[in-house]
């Protein structure tokens, strides 16, 4: 279409920006020039970029409010951890094991995405916000009941609903190992996540989301957001497209969760609580609804910020608030957009040429 030119230029700039930043950070990291606190944040930042980009698909592109995105991250994290930990013997090559874990994490989130999305997205109105809010809470409690171990007989899974069981009730063999110990969370995780893997996942999420936006389905999704009644009248299957955006977004959150979980030695479900969902939502809103590169920048800045603000001690939250406002102004500012438009030709100018 006509706007393809401009769109592909913005997309290209986004890919390029991410790649260049990765290369620079990777060189610094391998050269040992990064402080340990920054080096430790590289993988989580990649995870949260994927989280923000995928949430933007639901909130910005599809126009549905989701308040439980961290729930999908959680499902992916624990699904991925179970897969990676139990495959430790069978698949000794860590990058392959990580890939499998990420795929498993994404698939788990897809299943849950359908379970949450199918009943809710058939309805008109803002039910998704309420249901995802509850979902985020429920999933945390469910995982807190989960006992999982692995031995030569395979996986042992038990739901400790009564609260009386412990990991010993799985009766693992001597050589077996506990993977998830109820409220204690996942323990003894072999850390196999890496910054390059994070970069690949970010790029993958970008390719998926940006291509979807420019596709026929993407236009349908945005048309529904723009005017539901008009979209119905031209014969769009509203539920199908809303579900497509929602489940795809869940899948990416699940993948990000797996990468995130395998970056730590232990992990508790409360890491993915309501606050985390809101945090990601803040990245998306401040980066600009529907603005993918905005989500990336907002995530990086706001994720690094608390760390960078250490020196301000008491004024930390004050500075944080100011930066929030500045980011919002920058990503939603017409003048800045006009400046960018001068660098990147707009639709109208491109047409005129």
């Amino acid at each position, binding site marked *: 279409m006509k706007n393809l030119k401009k769109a592909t230029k913005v997309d290209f700039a986004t890919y390029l920006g991410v790649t260049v930043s990765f290369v620079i950070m990777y060189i610094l990291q391998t050269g040992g020039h990064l402080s340990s606190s920054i080096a430790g944040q590289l993988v989580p930042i990649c995870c949260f970029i994927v989280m923000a980009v995928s949430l933007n698909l639901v909130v910005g592109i599809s126009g549905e409010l989701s308040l439980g995105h961290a729930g999908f991250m959680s499902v992916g994290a624990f699904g991925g951890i179970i897969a990676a930990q139990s495959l430790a013997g069978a698949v000794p090559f860590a990058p392959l094991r990580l890939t499998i874990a990420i795929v498993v994490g994404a698939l788990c989130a897809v299943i849950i995405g359908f379970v949450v999305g199918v009943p809710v997205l058939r309805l008109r109105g803002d039910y998704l916000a309420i249901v995802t809010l509850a979902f985020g809470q429920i999933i945390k409690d469910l995982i807190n009941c989960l006992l999982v171990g692995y031995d030569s007989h395979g996986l042992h899974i038990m739901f400790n609903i009564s609260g009386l069981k412990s990991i010993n009730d799985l009766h693992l063999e001597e050589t077996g190992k506990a993977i998830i110990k109820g409220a204690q969370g996942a323990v003894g995780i072999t850390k196999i996540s890496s910054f390059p893997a994070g970069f690949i996942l970010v790029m993958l999420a970008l390719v998926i989301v940006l291509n979807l936006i420019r596709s026929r389905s993407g*236009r349908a999704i945005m048309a529904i957001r723009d*005017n539901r009644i*008009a979209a119905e*009248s*031209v*014969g*769009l299957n509203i539920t199908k497209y809303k579900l497509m955006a929602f489940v795809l977004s869940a899948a990416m959150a699940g993948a990000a969760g797996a990468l995130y979980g395998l970056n730590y030695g232990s992990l508790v479900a409360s890491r993915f609580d309501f606050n985390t969902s809101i945090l990601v939502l803040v990245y998306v809103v401040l980066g600009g609804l529907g603005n993918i590169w905005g989500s990336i920048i907002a995530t990086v800045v706001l994720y690094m910020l608390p760390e960078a603000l250490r020196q301000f001690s008491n004024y930390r939250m004050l500075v944080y608030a100011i930066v929030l406002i500045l980011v919002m102004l920058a990503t939603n500012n017409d003048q800045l957009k006009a400046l960018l438009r001068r660098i990147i030709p707009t639709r109208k100018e491109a047409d005129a040429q």
Partner: protein
Amino acid sequence: MLKVNDINVYYGAIHAIKGVSFEVNDGEIVTLIGANGAGKSTILNTVSGLLRSKTGSIEFLDKPLGTVPAHKIVERGIAHVPEGRRVFLQMTVEENLEMGAYTRPNAGVAAHLERVYEQFPRLKERRRQIAGTLSGGEQQMLAMGRGLMSDPKLLMLDEPSMGLAPILVEQIFEIIASLHKAGTTILLVEQNARMALSVADRAYVLETGKIAISGTGKELAASDEIRKAYLGG
């Protein structure tokens, strides 16, 4: 072409449509007129699958529509231009029109676009303009043009003249008349009974969910009862 037989539609406990039957024949303009809340939009929404009738049947080209989901209705050949100028505000005029052809194969869309532009030259002038910045009349034309993009056998228009200045109302009705001349079958819902009856082959008057009177456009325009109630004496 369209046969609606004894439909009853409810909103919860509200019985909005009470045993309505009517038909639209090939090549006709049929109008449904009636006061606010008579149930005109409800009938169109039922035909296009957004609402369901508890009884009776709706047949289009001799096939039942009763269980066809809303998003498949367009493929069957019915275009519904809903009440209130529903356009995609953030898209350009041309993108709006292209959305109208969403259910059609891509081949032929370009040629069809040209035909719609011939019918609505104003839209062609503004093809790159964002729909949200169009005037009300232009938005109505856009909604109608978008409906035509699916190349429908039946075009259903819900109050196309609503909220437009008299001169624009005339323009819209001229377009309706010319679409009719070009062979499009139209089911027109209107409150502007005078204009609707002037273009319609046949008309049905709806009162609180029931059809009160029906006849040819000329008959109804001449009837005393209608003149008093709908044409202002």
